């Protein structure tokens, strides 16, 4: 494995760890807000690390840009979704 592959592998593993931590957080945290807190880390940083790792592995600029676009779209959707869930949870008596 050359240096690029090592970096990609480390990024992918770090991303997977974020997904794992986020999932544990969602299962273990007591209320909706702290669960959201755990999940947004997964969407932003976890997916970001995975995308970076996969982009390095792809070896193609076009694919790397598409992966980046997926990350940006997922962030927009995740931010909106987190806001909606939090809003709904705060309205609930």
């Amino acid at each position, binding site marked *: 494995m050359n240096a690029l592959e090592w970096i990609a592998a480390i990024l992918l593993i770090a991303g997977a760890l974020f997904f794992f931590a986020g999932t544990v957080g969602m299962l273990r945290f007591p209320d909706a807000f702290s669960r959201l807190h755990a999940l947004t880390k997964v969407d932003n940083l976890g997916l970001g690390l995975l995308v970076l790792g996969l982009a390095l592995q792809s070896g193609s600029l076009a694919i790397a840009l598409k992966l980046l676009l997926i990350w940006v779209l997922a962030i927009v959707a995740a931010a909106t979704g987190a806001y*909606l869930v939090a*809003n709904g949870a705060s309205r609930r008596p």
Partner: protein
Amino acid sequence: MVNLYLVFDLLLALTLMWVGWRTLTSPDLFRGVVLFIAFGVLMTLAWVRLEAPDVAMAEAAIGAGLTGALLLDALADLRARRSHQDIEVSRLAAVSVITLALAGVLSWVMLTLPAQHASMHAPVTQPPNASGITNPVTLVLLVYRAYDTLLEMAVLLLAVIGARALHDEAPVGRAAPQYDLLAPAARVLLPAILLVAAYLLWAGATRPGGAFQAGAVLGAAGVLLRLAGLLPSPATYRRWMQMGLVSGFMVFLLVGVLVIFAGLPWLGYPATHTKALILLVETGLTLSIGMSLLSLFMSVPEQRSPSTHARASAS
């Protein structure tokens, strides 16, 4: 070394069955709907593993996304009116008997069909070069099994007409903007969603994609706009929506009939214009499927508080 793919597939299959079981047996309806959406996502993964990206896309967009949204919406309405709704047992029994009888007849028809093992594999994987269509799924749907797809569109149209007849659009066209962030997010995402729909439609000729996936994405865009309160009152665009609903079936039928005058068989495409005609049909299908899904979503009344509902049913 143990094959890691096999481990993953087995895990996926077991999780699918477990989530499916939990979906059906969950006493809490909301939990059931959420589990159903999770089931759709896992099912998408299963289709990817089966190397059927076309089905995976349709499953993600329709199975998990739009059906989930529909079920959540129906659930909210169900909760709002639960105390007013009594299902008559006699009616339930009658409907059950009719549906079971129909299912029995259809099963009998299927079982008595002569056994045929017509394989589409050879013609689909070695397509005629003139058509310009290389995606085998699109070839099957629009060339070799065009009649089936046409009838499918007719069934979809009938289903939407039935749903609309049962429930008119909600009287309030513009949903009260309940959430400040949804409308701006919808505005940001809308161009990207429409671009994806157009790309899927175009890509269907040579790569995974096509009218069903593009239509589902289009329908999702409509649902998003509807939820964000960005759609105007349905009265202003009812005519357009109706035209969109029938466009797929009409364009398909028109193309299928017009080729007869060129001396071709019914639904046979002329060799020189196959791709253009298929793209035309697929554009109609995309519009129709998008409108159908949006229309099903719109015929569910908007969320109302129990008090307004009580007043509406009391008057």
